[in-house]
């Protein structure tokens, strides 16, 4: 096992990989590439929305999208459309080809904290307070469900886009696009604060307030749910490889990876990646493959390969806490954002 301190001392210079950088004056809360990887979209916590040509850093568009505070940025997987949501209770649908605001939807009096496009790009769902509302890709409302036990803490789509799940205190609900009421309620008396649906549609995983990950097998009637515990803090970061083989979770300054491959990881030893020296704030697998990137409070970004194990492939350092990171859709680039507005595009070491 590598010594984490030694790893951090032998970080490589970011210069070798860096393509460009800009400095924004705010916490970077959202980062997305458009589906064609041509445009990088950035959102900051105080409401700024900015778009850059991904290859050259040319600024295309900048607007104060949600002056009361921006909460969520999501790019369509099939078009140059994006949605932003804010503390103003608004959802905004933008088109980045024409740099125009297509539609403003008044969701509710509450913050709009969750947004997710369906994998096929034909729908998006938003969570605001105790309600979830889902729309077609042009922002036409399809249905709304308003009686979650608490604020909706996560939205995750099924791989074929026919259904989505919401999490809140007390469990997970499954919705089908054309039905207003949930088709299933996966009950668990705990506060679920993060949610992920496996790409093979077999598992729903939730991070809970008491530092565990709770799994619901699907179809629910065929299996028994189970928990993974022993985490050092709340598990906020959840991500699957696209083949659903590996499931990534954060455990304070470590990454814990569970291997699934169509069956539960119960009884198996987790893969622990322990190169970070501070709390991990971001971690994501690439879109295809087992490479992953993780960022921490000290500004370190590490790249690993889950197939290889606890070996740091590359480590680079920014000045401040990594507040967001995003792979390009072709996995060639990585965008990094920090709590103090550093925005860096680098080549992927994968």
């Amino acid at each position, binding site marked *: 096992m590598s010594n984490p301190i030694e790893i951090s001392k032998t970080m490589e210079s970011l210069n070798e990989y860096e393509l460009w950088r800009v400095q924004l*004056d705010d*916490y970077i809360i959202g980062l997305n590439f458009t589906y064609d990887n041509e445009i990088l979209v950035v959102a900051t916590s105080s409401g700024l929305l900015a778009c850059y040509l991904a290859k050259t850093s040319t600024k295309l568009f900048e607007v104060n999208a949600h002056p009361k505070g921006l909460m969520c940025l999501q790019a369509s997987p099939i078009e140059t459309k994006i949605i932003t949501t804010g503390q103003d209770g608004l959802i905004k649908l933008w088109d980045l080809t024409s740099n125009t605001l297509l539609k403003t939807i008044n969701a509710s009096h509450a913050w709009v904290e969750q947004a997710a496009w369906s994998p096929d790009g034909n729908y998006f769902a938003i969570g605001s307070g105790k309600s979830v509302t889902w729309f077609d890709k042009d922002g036409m409302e399809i249905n709304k469900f308003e009686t979650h036990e*608490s*604020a909706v803490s996560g939205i995750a789509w099924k791989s074929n886009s026919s259904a989505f799940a919401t999490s809140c205190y007390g469990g997970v609900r499954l919705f089908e696009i054309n039905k207003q009421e949930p088709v299933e309620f996966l009950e668990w*008396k705990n*506060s679920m604060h993060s949610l992920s649906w496996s790409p093979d549609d077999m598992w729903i995983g939730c991070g809970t*307030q008491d530092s565990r990950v709770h799994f619901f097998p699907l179809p629910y009637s065929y299996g028994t749910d189970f928990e993974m515990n022993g985490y050092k*803090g709340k598990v906020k970061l959840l991500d699957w490889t696209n083949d659903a083989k590996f499931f990534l979770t954060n455990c304070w300054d470590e990454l814990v990876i569970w291997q699934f491959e169509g069956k539960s990881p119960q009884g198996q030893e987790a893969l622990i990646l322990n190169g970070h020296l501070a709390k991990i704030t971001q971690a994501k697998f690439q879109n295809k493959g087992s490479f992953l990137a993780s960022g921490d409070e000290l500004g370190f970004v590490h790249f690993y390969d889950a197939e290889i194990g606890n070996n740091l492939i590359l480590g680079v350092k920014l000045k401040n806490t990594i507040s967001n990171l995003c792979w390009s859709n072709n996995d060639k680039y990585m965008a990094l954002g920090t709590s103090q507005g550093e925005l860096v595009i680098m080549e992927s070491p994968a």
Partner: protein
Amino acid sequence: MENKNAIPVTVLTGFLGSGKTTLLNKILSENHGKKIAVIENEFGEVGVDNELVIGADEEIFEMNNGCICCTVRGDLIRILDQLMKRKDKLDYIIVETTGMANPAPVAQTFWVDDDIRATYSLDAIVTIVDAKHVWQHIDDSSECKEQIAFADVILLNKTDLVSEEELITLEKRIKSMNAQAKIHRTKDAAIDLNNILDIKAFDLDAKAELNPEFLIEEVPFEWCGIFDFESTEYQINMTEGPDSSLDIAFVKLDNDSEYQITKAKKSAIKLFSEEYKEVKNGKFLNSNHTRNCLLIEEAQQTFYFKPNKKSFYAVFTQHGPDEFNMQFLKSATNTQEEKEIKPINEIEYAHSHEHDDTVTSVGIEDDSELNIQKVNEWISYLLQFKGTDIYRMKGILNINGNDDRFVFQGVHMLFDAKADRQWKPEEKRRNQLIFIGKNLNREELVNGFKKCIVKKQLNFA
């Protein structure tokens, strides 16, 4: 709870109409140069004049962490998480709860949630009480009792609407429920902000001092009468009262000086924590340094006593004598009739427990050295078996063989403890503990504490 760079958070509780919003507006309008965000659950009264007012729907989440009374506020976690990401950094946060809120989930959020704990520090719970209308709630409303019991600071507001006597009665009542809170009288919620903000009530690194007043105010008896008894037979006539028994103890004095009375009070505190002797109607009680428990089983009863010798005595009673129409009489002899004896001096103490009140404070003060292992065992027992009933506890301990003070505090089953600074050479090494909660058994707590005391070995040369 300590984190030097953490943003302090004050929790403001109180019933609707008590003056919370008035106080908030005063805080926000004062020229203190701080950027303050307000998280409020209740839009009412008058609006709060601040850009940074965030509305929240109270979401209480039970935890599955083995602590049966552990709950957190989910809405607070989400909002505070977002506030961490603000471009303009905040200096202070005030959480205003609804009038009907229990402060425990708010306080526990700052203990349980790692992210919140890393960025924020709970500074204090401030409860604002409407001095005129609180009587409508104080007996029946568990929320009202909890808000008082959890408070570090209590503002008795609208004092201009009540008399001095009413205020004194209310203060006594509040102190019986929470002896540790600092009470300030206010009119229109006007208060020096240094008394309510940044006071570090939850910070074990802060200059941990318990409010010395609670030790003076909090005693297990409500009345003391100083008598000049002869060595003859006396009787006590009583009617039924609010309890089915009454504890009474006699302490002999050398004279009736204030010093002697203070000394007697300390003896009485000890006596009231010891085993008692039950005395039935018509029987003699022990007037020689004993805790007697007079059983009130009939509408009228008489108890007898006979002091060993003529002297001044301090007689301590669990409740005020007027509650049982208690009369001290010199028993009749062949030549005399019964003669009522009045005390030459009387002292009333704050009620340490109300008959209809399940929320009380228990304070313990003692100069002994404690065994750390036994303290750990005792506190573990309390957390495990009494954590639901103990709302808050705080203490400074004198640990045997350790030159540092040991400080602790807890909210329900959540607990923080550490070695503090060194005892100063001129400082008396004294244990001071306070427990605030419902159904607290003073005797049990005192006995538990006593078991932690290191027994001194006598060495003979």
